[in-house]
């Protein structure tokens, strides 16, 4: 947990800083991230509709990236709360691709097994599993499995909604499969190999 | 025919008012670009006599970059339009001579566009690298070895044969 680093600092040691972290995140991000260009103005943190639940505002997270605080950044719940509304992206005066940086940090956190106790990684993974198995997403399976696992107590109050969705024909009970699932699977298989080499 | 070791030699013509100043700006801003372009300053792109281009290509250049002010921004009102006309004609002549017309490129760059100048120069070098050496006026034996006293990066085509312009 984060305290470990702080304790080491207290013991007179330097905080472990990774000067290459910012560049690493930038390069792993889709498109040209412009992450290096951040001027810490806080437009992102000001725009974010879910900032109230974030441990760090996006701006703060970028400052931590610059400071090379790998562990703290990857443990932050911030990327997992991002709702991809792109308000910060279009308002950012430096054109930082903030939403895409959040995706990068999620991926890095999963690989480093450092994400906080958010249920989001599991949700994403469940979704991915489903898409890989069927080629299409499948809300019924996704929602029920996710809720069952993470919000069992909320499930009863959610039942009327789920029931409504089913009775109104808005939640298919059976998943749809695409025809050339094999093709998709080989593409994704190759893509995963490429991901590891990049 | 892409040859990784091939370093093109390119002659660049600039006008005194816009594009040479763009290259100055690229310099003051320390923007890096491919070193293969050697510049000649004219007063105006309208001064560009097509025979200059032929002289350069026959003399060992693999490509020629002609630069000037943006249309409508010429220091001499509209002479860059004349450069444009000559450029289009020149490409036809080159095609007639069996030379890829892509070896001559026209770039507009204002005095403020140092970054554009640098990017265009680098891009053009890559385009010419893809086209390969021109070897105009050389024997079929192809590339002569470069004078050993020359650093290998200065690509000096054989100069034994002079081709009249």
């Amino acid at each position, binding site marked *: 947990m984060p305290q470990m680093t702080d304790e080491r600092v207290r013991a007179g040691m330097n905080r472990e800083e990774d000067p290459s972290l910012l560049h690493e995140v930038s390069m792993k991000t889709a498109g040209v991230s412009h992450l290096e260009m951040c001027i810490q103005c806080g437009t992102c943190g000001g725009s974010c509709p*879910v900032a109230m639940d974030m441990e760090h505002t996006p701006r703060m997270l970028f400052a931590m990236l610059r400071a090379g605080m790998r562990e703290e950044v990857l443990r932050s719940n911030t990327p997992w709360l991002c709702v991809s509304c*792109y308000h910060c992206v279009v308002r950012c005066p430096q054109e930082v691709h903030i939403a895409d940086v959040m995706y990068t940090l999620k991926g890095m956190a999963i690989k480093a097994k450092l994400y906080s106790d958010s249920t989001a990684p599991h949700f*994403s993974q469940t979704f991915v599993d489903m898409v890989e198995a069927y080629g299409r*997403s499948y*809300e019924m399976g996704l929602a029920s499995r996710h809720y069952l696992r993470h*919000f069992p107590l909320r499930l009863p109050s959610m039942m009327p909604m789920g029931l409504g*969705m089913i009775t109104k024909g*808005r939640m298919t009970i059976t998943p749809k499969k695409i025809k050339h699932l094999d093709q998709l699977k080989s*593409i994704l298989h190759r893509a995963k190999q490429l991901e590891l080499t990049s | 025919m892409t040859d990784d070791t091939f370093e093109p030699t390119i002659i660049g013509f600039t006008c005194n008012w816009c594009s040479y100043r763009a290259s100055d700006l690229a310099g003051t801003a320390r923007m890096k670009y491919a070193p293969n372009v050697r510049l000649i300053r004219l007063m105006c792109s309208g001064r560009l006599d097509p025979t200059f281009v032929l002289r350069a290509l026959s003399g060992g250049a693999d490509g020629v970059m002609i630069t000037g002010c943006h249309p409508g921004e010429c220091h001499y009102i509209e002479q860059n339009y004349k450069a444009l006309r000559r450029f289009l004609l020149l490409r036809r002549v080159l095609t007639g001579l069996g030379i890829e017309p892509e070896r001559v490129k026209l770039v507009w760059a204002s005095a403020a566009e140092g970054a554009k100048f640098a990017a265009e120069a680098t891009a053009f070098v890559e385009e010419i690298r893809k086209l390969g050496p021109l070897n105009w006026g050389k024997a079929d034996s192809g590339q002569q070895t470069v004078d050993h006293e020359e650093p290998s990066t200065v690509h000096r085509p054989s100069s034994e044969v002079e081709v009249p312009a």
Partner: protein
Amino acid sequence: MNKYLLYPGCSMDSSAKAYMESLNEILEPLNLHLEEIKDWNCCGATEYLGINLIPAYSLIARNLALAAKQMNPVNGTGGTRTVVAPCSACYLNLAKADYYMQERPTLGAKVNEALAAGGLEYKAGTLDVRHLIDVLVYDVGLDTIRSKVVRPLSGLKVVPYMGCMLPRPDYQHRWSDHEHPTELDDLLRALGADVIDYPLTTECCGGHMTQIGPETAFELIRRLVADADERGAQMMVTVCPMCQMNIDAYQNEANHFFGTNYHMPILFFTQLMGLAFGKEPGDLGIGVELVSARNALANIGVEVPVTQEPAAPRKKDEGLPMPRRWTKHEGRKEAVK
């Protein structure tokens, strides 16, 4: 030009089937032909991108590759290079993938290497990815739409809700504004509706937070619904299946959470177009929303037939097998590989 390729997206035949039904109803009056991309797959929503980069973009790009193949005139689509996506998230993913594959050629190359494993390729920039409302406002045109209105929606007080993924990040510069775009307002006005200025029109509905952090999402839903209610709206009108789903299906839950009692129906803009064009509510998927629009529509004399209470749900859910469960152990294997 009235022929387009259609990328429907997964929700169009489930949670947003009303969107699809109503879309089908308005195609004929507007002389639009949409040809579905054959064997399209899920775009990955916002989930896939958080796991892996190359697979996420390869998943999206498979659709682009299939569409590009299909756009070939000899295959009989009329040769259009425009892909229409009615879902904002799908639109964003497809458009963004196309843009990033150009902006970062190394990404484009890797994605194509992956596509090659499935015998496909896609040259970024080949297609033009656009959202349904973009095509309706800018290609079909408001004048044409206005000319098809037989039942003006005057008296129906609506707030236009564009959501976030449509006007942003907008790398293609398609929208009038990132904050207060007017396309949906203009369209609803063309239908005769009383359009209320809605400052939250591009605020977030909560996205996937309804699944992973419901309490965060409830607050976002509350803000939207409360402001619409405050401004006297009878309903919200949306262009996005995810927005519709969150505001419709989770509204009661949010009410529950905050002790409020909002009743703010939310319909797809295509449903209102259908109504204005004189179509029957039942054919437009009206009635399947959980927060009923019945009372709101009564204001303009539209009667929504009562949906039949379905039979009791199946006693035993014997559905199809679920995909493998993801475990930490498995994740590790993946990483080591």
